[in-house]
């Protein structure tokens, strides 16, 4: 035991003695480990972030026919473009058939400096992550919109746009900031409220009435828009929507499936379950992650080969030192162990570097992505997936040390002792 502890110390001293070479080798291992760790940590953060961002958005998204995934991504995560327009008759029909159903209509298509204008009604602000939680989107300042061309800003949008209550702004056509000619100069909005931060993509949203959106596009007159206020603040609408969110309150799950089935039989509309679509998205992400894992695995193998090369050349250069140790009483197994432990130290150092670097990179990338998408991406240590990423390189590194260790083991002491 004492000899093993001494071998550990000698191996550590040997690694320290070749500072530059050891640091470089450990760094190569570290980069390979960092790649794997960052992939796992980012995937975990993205998955949790998307679930967190999506979990307030009801059980069903209704929209025009097309890609269900794009419908969910656009409506819930504010990614990608709307897939088209949905006649509000579909919405009206649902409201008429299911008076207890809480449905938030959504009409998108304009933006202010890239921040999306979301036409909706007050039902949207009833969205909550669970029945026991308060609504996800609540005003922190001011009030909700009551009239057309009144706007309520998401927390992120308010901060980025620098708008305050009472400020006015113009919107542009499209989902991203574009040409000056696209600006709706005739329809300025007035800020009446600012929402508290919900850690969701809709923190980037600018909420207005549906009618404002239509009127800005001169659809109000064309669609003979009539707003009929209802006692429950749910407004019957006419015009075109990009989607409608069905809230999971006041309706049985069976009814939700029935509604989905019913909508899906319609030639122009579809109903998508966010959970199922996000599950499919995660499955695609996992496939991407699997490819990246293969790349990371190859990087780890290359790093192990680097350890092998480094230790092999070091062992060749240090044959006399090994012979000296043998002449002082070190057994073959002891010098074998010392060389193998050098591989262990180098890899362990690389793994530590990789672990820290991987988390650092993942945190930086998460912060950048979160700032861009407002999807809350918070990294954490995912032991179940990271532990193998730390152990496998150690095993590979030690395996890479076997050949140089065998070289040390088989060394001809007398020949190398005088080989100055």
């Amino acid at each position, binding site marked *: *035991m*004492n*000899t093993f502890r*001494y071998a550990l110390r000698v191996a550590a*001293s040997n690694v320290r*003695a070749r500072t530059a070479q050891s640091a470089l080798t450990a760094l190569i291992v570290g980069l390979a480990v960092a790649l794997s760790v960052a992939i796992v940590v980012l995937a975990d953060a993205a998955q949790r972030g998307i679930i967190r961002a999506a979990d307030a958005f009801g059980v069903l998204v209704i929209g025009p026919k097309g890609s269900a995934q794009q419908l969910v991504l656009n409506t819930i995560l504010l990614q990608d473009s709307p897939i088209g327009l949905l006649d509000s008759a579909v919405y009206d029909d649902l409201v008429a058939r299911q008076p207890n159903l809480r449905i938030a209509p959504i009409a998108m298509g304009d933006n202010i400096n890239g921040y999306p204008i979301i036409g909706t009604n007050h039902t949207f602000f009833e969205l909550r992550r669970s029945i026991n939680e308060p609504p996800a989107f609540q005003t922190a300042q001011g009030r909700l919109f009551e009239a057309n061309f009144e706007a309520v800003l998401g927390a992120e949008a308010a901060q980025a746009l620098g708008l305050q209550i009472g400020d006015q702004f113009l919107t542009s056509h499209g989902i991203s900031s574009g040409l000056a000619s696209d600006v709706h100069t005739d329809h300025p909005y007035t800020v009446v409220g600012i929402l508290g931060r919900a850690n969701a993509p809709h923190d980037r949203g600018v909420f207005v009435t549906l009618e404002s959106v239509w009127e800005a596009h001169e659809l109000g007159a064309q669609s003979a828009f009539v707003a009929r206020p209802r006692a429950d603040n749910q407004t019957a609408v006419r015009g075109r929507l990009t989607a409608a969110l069905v809230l999971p309150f006041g309706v049985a799950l069976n009814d939700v499936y029935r509604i989905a089935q019913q909508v899906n039989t319609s030639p122009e509309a579809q109903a998508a379950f966010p959970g199922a679509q996000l599950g499919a998205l995660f499955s695609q992400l996992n496939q991407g992650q699997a490819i990246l894992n293969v790349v990371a695995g190859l990087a780890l193998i290359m790093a192990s080969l680097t350890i092998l090369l480094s230790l092999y050349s070091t062992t060749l250069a240090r044959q*006399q*030192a090994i012979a*000296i*140790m*043998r*002449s*002082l*009483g*070190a*057994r*073959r*197994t*002891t010098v074998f162990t010392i060389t193998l432990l050098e591989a262990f130290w180098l890899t362990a150092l690389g793994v530590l570097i990789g672990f820290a670097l991987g988390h650092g990179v993942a945190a930086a990338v998460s912060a950048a992505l979160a700032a861009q998408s407002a999807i809350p991406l918070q990294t954490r240590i995912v032991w179940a997936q990271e532990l193998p990423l730390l152990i496998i390189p150690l095993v590979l590194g030690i395996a890479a040390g076997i050949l140089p260790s065998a070289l040390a083991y088989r060394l001809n*002491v*007398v020949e190398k*002792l*005088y080989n*100055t």
Partner: protein
Amino acid sequence: MSDIPCLRLSNLMHTYTANGLAPRTVLNVPTWQVAHGEHLLLRGISGSGKTTLLNLLSGLLTPTQGSVEVLGQALSKLTEADRDRFRAQHVGYVFQTHNLLPFSALENVAMPLAFLGVPPRHYRPRAAESLAQVGLAEWQHHKPHQLSAGQRLRVAVARALIAKPALLLADEPTAALDPETGAQVMDLIQRVCHAHKATLIVASHDPALSERFAQVAELRGGTLQMASAEKVGLL
């Protein structure tokens, strides 16, 4: 001490076989023994087989034929691992090039004990004591490149003696030193060996060393001839 000599060689023959060349016998010693506590100078020109003989005595080399007994133990009958352990316990070896590793003087000196499995709390004070014995108490933490040639040799001596070996072998210990430093180091080696009651065999072609030894053995043509210093004309 028992009747068993410190060293006994019987029918020793060692042959080197180089690639493509005929085997060359470098040592042929029918019988030779050295008593406990003796100090002996092993003379011979370069290439006469002095270092080979020391390597055979230390168990680093196994003879082609015959046997080497140290403290009554036939080295060839030991396994390699046991031979390594035996060497660490009973044989100190001061190499011509000192063969220090790039660690501190203390770590270099402690190495034989560490390889025997002695725990640090025991080998550290002994290494410090051994260094103090050779006058390097203040140099424990210096690395070889921070020491003079004489100091490096002292570290090598301290290392060779730390396990209190019964046999100390020194290969050309003064070769890299000026005469004055060489004399000081030889004083030290002999003094410490006397203190440890260790048998000392110094291989050297330095004529200045002959006057220090009552026992001189000459290697010539692979054979060993024992003579007193006077008889070989060294004094």
